[in-house]
């Protein structure tokens, strides 16, 4: 039955699909997953901020092959972002200090969403604010917009009322902002957690208690890079967010801890480069995964990972990808 979904809501499994020699012996695995009511044809999404508004990648890969696209984080008003340099490569990773530059929620709905709606993939809208009111305003606007499957709240964002303390690093702030937003949307609400905390389970619980439908984790680790010769920070903003393979062990641990603590479906993020990486996240408890930095390395990586998950299930005789979720043998 997952197969139905795989073929697409609009009934078109369209696009460049690797031709496979059909093997009558091997059952076709059910790759579909359901995240808080969002039915996805497969567990692969692209992570916010690494995939633009989808249109940037459309010339290079087949968007129809994705479970969902998570768009660049939106705020109520457009944001200019941080001064350059904004990115620097690090060992097996990168730092970014984009500073949440985005076109704003209005321009997104008007100019970006119509393009995405043409594809047979779910659109999940990542958003943020620097006050609780801001978050609520954006949620309100998105709630009444067609073609959005769910919302992802980025709480790794400083709260100006709380002296620029990040919402996502304090359980109290997390609870307040999530329960406020909850009141303004009936869409599935995914809360995206920051890894820059001592104990992710405390924040996970706060988000769950406040009414989140699912959690995604992790956002970037806070980091810095310096040029030994000029003695200057390599980022205009001095501090940035670390992503890529370097952070995978940290992300896996946090997903596993969250899985043991809260009952919500989880979306695993952090350093996923291959299908094997994706499967590791599912084993520790993620129902779906997001691919970030890897898109920059290979624009087609998300499709390759979707194929790789299918291959893995087939070879290991896993009838439905759901069986993997939380199947760690300890």
């Amino acid at each position: 039955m997952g197969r139905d979904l795989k073929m697409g809501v609009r009934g078109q499994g369209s696009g460049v699909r690797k031709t496979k020699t059909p093997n009558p012996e091997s059952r076709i695995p059910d790759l579909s997953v359901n995240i808080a009511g969002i039915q996805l044809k497969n567990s692969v999404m692209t992570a916010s901020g690494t995939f633009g508004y989808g249109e940037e990648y459309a010339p290079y890969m087949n968007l129809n092959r994705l479970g969902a696209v998570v768009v660049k984080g939106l705020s109520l008003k457009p944001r200019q972002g941080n001064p350059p340099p904004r990115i620097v490569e690090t060992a097996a990773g990168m730092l970014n200090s984009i500073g949440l530059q985005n076109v704003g929620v209005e321009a997104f709905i008007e100019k970006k969403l119509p393009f995405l709606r043409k594809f047979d993939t779910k659109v999940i809208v990542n958003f943020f604010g620097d006050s609780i009111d801001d978050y609520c305003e954006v949620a309100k606007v998105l709630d009444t917009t067609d073609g959005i499957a769910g919302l992802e709240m980025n709480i790794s964002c400083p709260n100006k009322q709380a002296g620029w303390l990040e919402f996502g690093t304090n359980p109290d702030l997390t609870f307040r902002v999530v329960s406020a937003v909850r009141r303004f949307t009936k869409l599935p609400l995914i809360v995206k957690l920051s890894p820059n905390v001592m104990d992710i389970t405390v924040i996970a619980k706060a988000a769950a208690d406040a009414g989140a439908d699912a959690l995604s984790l992790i956002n970037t680790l806070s980091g810095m890079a310096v040029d030994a010769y000029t003695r200057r920070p390599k980022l205009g903003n001095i501090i940035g967010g670390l992503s890529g393979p370097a952070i995978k062990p940290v992300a896996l641990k946090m997903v596993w801890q969250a899985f043991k603590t809260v009952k919500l479906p989880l979306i695993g993020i952090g350093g996923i480069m291959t299908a094997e990486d994706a499967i590791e996240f599912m084993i520790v408890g993620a129902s779906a995964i997001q691919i970030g930095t890897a898109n920059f390395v290979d624009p087609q990586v998300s499709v390759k990972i979707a194929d790789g998950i299918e291959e893995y299930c087939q070879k290991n005789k896993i009838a439905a990808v759901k069986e993997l979720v939380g199947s760690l043998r300890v």
Partner: protein
Amino acid sequence: MAKVLYNKRVLAFPYTEDFGAGGYYKLGIRWEDLPPIEPGQFIMLRIAKQIDPLLRRPFGVYKILGHGACPHTKNFGMGACLPVRGRTQTGGKGPGIEILYRVVGRGTRLMTDLKPGDSVDVLGPLGNSFPLEIRSQEVIMVAGGIGIVPFYMLAGKLKKARLLFGGRSKDDLPALEDFKKLKIDMEVSTDDGSVGEKGLVTGLLLKRLSKNSVVYACGSKGMLKEVARIAEGADIPCYVSLDNAMACGIGACLGCAVKVKGQGARGKGQEKQTSELIYKMVCKDGPVFDAREIEWEEI
């Protein structure tokens, strides 16, 4: 997958404290179904199969390699004859491209290990190109060191062009021979006077500039800033090719931002209160920009 045709050092840029022992190399890449590529466009090259270095690196396309069998040459509508070399191990001929690169860090150092027949992963062509509609004016191309890259193809597309080419020393003027073979006026300067005029390339520019000129420039940020200042002072059009660190190369990550002047506000340091975005992306909106658009103070 594209294949390496050849990879060879063309100039041994001497050891310097900031970059170490570098050097300039030419890398030939066989590319089936070569799409059209305009002067100024670039590719994102993935160097390693390993995760180090992780990200792709941007490189301009220096030459288009022809379809003709080697060692015959083929005029590619660019005013230049393009012999394809390095056939020894792949029997390689076009279609393909040639990259001219300078060794500056981990990625480019690793690139020097590439051998004929190796697979490389090329994304592109990307970005915009130098505007060609101003063909009738007197074009001055100003290049600093590796900034020469876009001008080989551009020279082929222009009817009349003059090249001003500057470097630190004679070892910092890569592919000078290629340009000698083209039928363009060329003047050279070096900081140490080891070849051409002693001094900066902007010195040559000041001499050659006229009311009719249009300037195309590529080189270090410092050089571009100075060229832009000169053009602005002379009130002539000036286009620059910028070089920022990139992650995606296609406008998705918003990493390669460059500050531009707002439409209403051209003044220095003015805070933009508009909803208009003040950052453009070098990979998507560039790499070629109208010099008047750039906030040079922030470069």
